């Protein structure tokens, strides 16, 4: 497991910084997912991993492969673009489903109808430890 690509010094420093930064962002996002109290708070931290973490790790990968093959390889940005486009859609659908479930089951402090914008402080005391 203890192997690495044969890169020159500047590329090795850049790849190491990007990879370590991306892994740090993703770890912070997962810690936030574990520690936050309500679901509506917990939706937010994983997006730290999908935007900044994925972008930094993919930048490191692009630099690594471009230096190794001595030509510009940009196909890894396909993953970054796809994740950055689909994550907001899927998480918004999930949050809408959660609001719908809270409304129909009468749990939490979710407003009854969707005409008024939900106040964020009413969600603090929302559903904890059910089922």
């Amino acid at each position: 497991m203890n192997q690495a690509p044969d890169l020159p010094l500047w590329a090795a420093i850049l790849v190491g910084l990007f990879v370590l930064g991306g892994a740090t962002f993703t770890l912070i996002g997962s810690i936030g997912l574990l520690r936050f109290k309500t679901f509506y708070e917990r939706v937010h931290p994983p997006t730290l991993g999908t935007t900044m973490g994925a972008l930094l790790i993919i930048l490191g990968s692009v630099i690594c492969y471009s230096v190794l093959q001595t030509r510009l390889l940009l196909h890894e940005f396909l993953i970054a673009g796809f994740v950055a486009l689909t994550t907001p859609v899927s998480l918004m659908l999930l949050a809408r489903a959660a609001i719908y479930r809270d409304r129909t089951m009468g749990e939490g402090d979710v407003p009854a109808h969707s005409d008024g914008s939900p106040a964020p402080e009413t969600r603090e005391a929302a559903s904890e430890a059910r089922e």
Partner: protein
Amino acid sequence: MTISALAIVITLAQVMLGLAMAFAAWRIFLGPRAQDKVLGLDTLYVNTMLLLLLFGIQTGRTLYFEAALIIAVLGSVGTIALAKFLMRGEVIE
């Protein structure tokens, strides 16, 4: 010298991503309601995709890139499908 330092850094990043995967799996395990479990599964997918990209950097093979692309596609589709199921299939019959 720089190669061994880079190897240590990549291994450290892999350990951090593995820890992030463990946190997401723990959220799947204890998440009080179904939407928490779906959220943990989505996070687990993203962390696995980043870990596969790191394996690709470490070994220099392009095989891992294709696996990461497939996981990125199927993970988002799975999350959307589970959200639609939570919206329509379980609470209201």
